């Protein structure tokens, strides 16, 4: 019945649907308890009226917002794809900034601290992450090859390693390495302990990614290379891995971004990276939120850098697929 109506009057049905969605958004905003203060800010003359008619004001505010969203949506549809993407980013970014602005942040305080945040925190975070990423990649490659090995001892080692380091919380690993290694007579600094924990943990995750990537390459590739006389190592590095990279890079990019942020866990052993500074720098003047938001934004910017790098690498290893 309803289905037939929709099929016979598609245009009308679509309009009714759009109206319904609009109504849903407005109702949602209203029930979330949207305030009407912003109307008062734009039209100061309406302030008194809003004070008297609280409920009505909120309803109007909800409907107005829903209409603005709908209008914005329609407007965006007019743009070509690339500009749509840029516009959505700009709008959402502006909203995010508006959200932060509503915290009543002290910009001078941020300006005062950000230099140290970057020169000390970002440098330490990047340094720890970069070294850990490099080591984890080497571990992952070795682990993946070991996991594909026919030798039982090597396979056993690899599976125990990945199981253990994927199974323990990273925070625990950091504590165990930092506090545990000295017990067996090896005193380790906080930074090396953090790097070791991050490398081992992410090496274990990435072992699985590399293994899956290598296994995704058809057996015929190994056979073709072997028949040409290439050694197993040459086959792996010249034929299999360059192709496996297409499968390996996207999830590895994810891992790198996750690791970048997980490097904040190293702050628990007192390394002065971004997170540690964010927690300590705000303390003296009770401006925690400023520092936390600043740190968050810094992490985000660094992640975007990694995302960009990932897309470049992906394009590099995927170029042979272009027709």
């Amino acid at each position, binding site marked *: 019945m309803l289905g037939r109506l929709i099929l016979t009057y598609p245009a009308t049905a679509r309009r009714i649907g759009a109206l319904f969605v609009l109504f849903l958004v407005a109702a949602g905003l209203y029930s979330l308890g949207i305030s009407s203060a912003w109307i008062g800010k734009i039209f100061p003359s309406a302030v008194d009226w809003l004070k008297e008619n609280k409920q009505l004001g909120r309803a109007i505010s909800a409907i107005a917002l829903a209409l603005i969203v709908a209008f914005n949506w329609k407007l965006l549809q007019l743009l070509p794809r690339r500009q749509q993407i840029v516009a959505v980013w700009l709008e959402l970014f502006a909203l995010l900034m508006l959200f932060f602005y509503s915290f009543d942040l002290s910009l001078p305080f941020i300006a005062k601290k950000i230099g140290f945040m970057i020169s000390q925190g970002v440098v330490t975070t990047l340094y720890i992450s970069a070294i850990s990423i490099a080591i984890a990649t080497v571990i992952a490659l070795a682990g993946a090859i070991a996991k594909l090995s026919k030798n039982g001892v090597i396979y056993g080692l690899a599976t125990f390693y990945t199981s253990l380091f994927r199974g323990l919380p990273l925070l625990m690993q950091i504590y165990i390495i930092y506090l545990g290694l000295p017990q067996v007579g090896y005193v380790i600094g906080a930074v090396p302990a953090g790097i070791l924990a991050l490398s081992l943990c992410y090496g274990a995750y990435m072992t699985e990614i590399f293994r899956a990537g290598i296994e995704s390459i058809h057996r015929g590739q190994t056979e073709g290379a072997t028949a040409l006389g290439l050694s197993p190592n040459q086959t792996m590095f010249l034929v299999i891995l360059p*192709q496996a990279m297409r499968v390996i890079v996207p999830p590895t990019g994810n891992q790198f971004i996750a690791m970048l942020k997980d490097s904040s866990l190293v702050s628990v052993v007192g390394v002065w990276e971004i997170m540690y500074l964010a927690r300590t720098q705000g303390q003296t003047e009770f401006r925690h939120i400023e520092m936390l938001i600043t740190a968050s934004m810094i992490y985000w910017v660094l992640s975007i850098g990694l995302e960009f790098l990932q897309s470049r690498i992906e394009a590099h290893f995927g170029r042979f697929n272009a027709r």
Partner: protein
Amino acid sequence: MPQSMNDEIKLSGVHKWYGQYHALDDINLEVAKKERIVICGPSGSGKSTLIRCINRLEAHQQGQIIVGGIELTENEKNIEEVRREVGMVFQHFNLFPHLTIVENCVLAPVWVRKMGKAKATEIAMHFLERVRIADQANKYPGQLSGGQQQRVAIARALCMNPKIMLFDEPTSALDPEMVKEVLDTMVSLAEEGMTMICVTHEMGFARQVADRVIFMDQGRVVEEAAPAEFFDNPQHERSRLFLSQILH
């Protein structure tokens, strides 16, 4: 065991098992220099297994395989040496999709034969010209038709200057109109005196170039004869049945 100087390949009493499955059952085969052998037989009869044992893509478990005077054993050095002299062409080409056509061809000469890049490229272009595909040298395999890819695969194998070429159903993954271009390439190779072992059901090709046809069934060599004899007057019941099936 004394070996006749003329034998390029010699298999004696070769057995191979996949677990319980007896894939090769007492294979005895001698291939002289410049000889062209065609192997045929029903699916699962062990044809691929047999030629893959000749360059040790598969290891045999019993018997002796000697290629170019070198016995294939666990010995890695021997295996390497044999593989350098034996080229192989596969049903599904097995080109490296991440490398261009010419890069596919220079990879092994550069890394295995330690040849200079310029020299290797020159040789690669020579063979690509021979298989009439030099104009595509800078494309990727995925941009070529099946027949073109298979000709590149042949050129790639030839770049290693092999003494022996193995073909495992090189035309059976191709559209019919591309079969001829690949067979023509193989015929011209045969005419130049390459030692060849081809697994194929292309009977026209077998008649034209083969010195001997070997018919396999259930891991065994059932019949071995000159092509005319084999096709016109097969001796065994299984061969007759097989031929009646592939000739419709």
